[in-house]
């Protein structure tokens, strides 16, 4: 199962994704799931999480990073496999005008 790292922005609490191309000494975070660095196996996932945790402790841009399972669609889109994470990545299902779905994130 493919995995990505998700976290919360320290100042706003917004959901953030460990961005594609992040590496030691050069970590960045994006606001949309599409920007995520994807780990194809457990070893890479553990490495990404370690990178994210080290960055959270060093730069304090995000808090509480953790891994979530995602599926890659044929069109390249990433979809969380669990409801909870899908809601985190979009916003409240009862208020489409709020959260990331209001900023262009798609189901």
């Amino acid at each position, binding site marked *: 199962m493919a995995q990505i790292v998700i976290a*919360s922005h*320290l*100042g*706003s*609490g*917004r*959901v953030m994704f460990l961005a594609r191309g992040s590496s030691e000494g050069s970590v960045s975070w994006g606001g949309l799931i599409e920007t995520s660095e994807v780990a194809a196996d457990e070893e890479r996932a553990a490495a990404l999480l370690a990178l994210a945790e080290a960055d*959270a*402790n060093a*730069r*304090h841009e995000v*808090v*509480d990073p953790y891994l979530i399972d995602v599926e890659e669609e044929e069109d390249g889109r990433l979809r969380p*496999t*669990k*409801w*909870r994470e899908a*809601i*985190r990545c979009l*916003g*409240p*299902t*009862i*208020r489409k005008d*709020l*959260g*990331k779905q209001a900023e262009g994130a798609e189901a």
Partner: protein
Amino acid sequence: MYRYDEFDHALVQDRVTQFRRQVERRMKGEISEEQFRPLRLMNGLYLQLHAYMLRVAIPYGTLDSRQMRKLAYIARRYDKGYGHFTTRQNIQYNWPKLEETPDILAELAEVEMHAIQTSGNCIRNVTSDQYAGAAQGEIEDPRIWCEIARQWSTLHPEFSFLPRKFKIAITGCERDRAAVKVHDIGMIMKHDEAGEVGFEVLVGGGLGRTPFVGKTIRDFLPKEHFLSYMEAILRVYNQLGRRDNKYKARIKVTLHETGQEEFTRLVEEEWETIKDSTLKLPKEEVDRIAAHFEPPEWKALPDDAPTCDARAASDPEFAAWLRHNVEPHKAAGYAIVNISVKPPGEPPGDVTDVQMEAMADMADAYSFSELRVTHVQNVTLPHVEKERLPALFDDLAKHGLATANVGLVSDIICCPGLDYCALANARSIPVAQELTKRYTLERQQEIGEMQIKISGCINACGHHHVGNIGILGVDRKGEEHYQVQLGGSAKEDASLGKIIGRGFTQEEVVEVVDTLLDTYLELREGDEVFIDTFRRVGIKPFKERVYGAA
């Protein structure tokens, strides 16, 4: 209403300054998230699924128009234009920014409000009857005692790190509108045989993973011992309460594991050592607090209300609202008005900034500037002249606040669930929305008194255990599922619901509720309400209708 004295002002201002500095240090990275988390939680700031969530205390659910306007302003200026009234009579904002939270707390302090002790293992906001000071049959205004408890428990050094959170509810009426029997401590005002006023003291009620109805450990407590007895209970709990397992740390488990008799003995033993100490309440101090809760200057009015009656006779919508949302008042010519914030299809308890301001204006115009937040997530105007009810109804209707459904099937208690909450397993609001859209007023009136309560996880913020019909969202292999319970009550006849069987999908559970209501209507005798029918016939016929006879 209680007004802050210099100690309250200083305490809240100090906390704002302190938290501002803590946030600055966190933003600069001078303290870690691990160090900061307990500090933000002590100020009611959680980190939820999409953003931070700030829980603001509304002491015993009472607020004035000035405070409601401030809540509206905060919703508009610092959040997304709405707030959520909770089952603990608080308000939650779902989108505040960490950097702006000290400013929000400073805004709150301007109107004598704060977020202290809305989280953490301490004594939380004391809750009460939303009709306090207005209810017929009330022995005394319970808010006097809530305020005494608030002052005693605020930053109480001995009780700031309890084994687990601690919730107290107090009512001055036999009729329980504050769910006192499912609180860690429930206090019910009563007379003893000599006619003296005191309290029946219940301990160990609670919902969550291990639900219990509270047990009476003292049948009558004289008023002057109100604090010393609570202190004795808290001391015993603080010593015996389990700190090794958070799921067994609430006082309900302590009482259950210790045994009611032994627990009571320990409390009484402790109380003997402190009952005549400084905790014994001097009458002058009680009178000083009570002066803040003197009734407003009600006019001497006749109790009949011809204008109101005439409108009711000619306007069925007004008549329905009058029947369901308006309650008798202790003063002749006045009524208590419940504003339902549960129109069909909307999240229960969510109120916009504009609606909050409208309610503040209506409190000024009709109810001596007073409002209450109820534990069933509605808002009450406690003192309205009966003859002005038609005008109030029209004003409410302009703001979508005149839904006539209080106490009916669409007056649902519902937690934020998985749409917002980091602890939830399933969404609860969409289930409530489907149910509130489903029933016409006529159908709701046919069903009669009904409390549906929905929680998105076992922590039971939606009080599902004490719903006549309770719905619990669970995670079944990554899918949302819903267990259904029947026969709960949060009133003076408190009881815990029984699970009817295997769970359902979100689509199914709405149909199941329909089946349960049909079954009740077929089985009920005379004027029986749902809970009475359930207690008479038991769970079996409901189960058979839902799952088919075995």
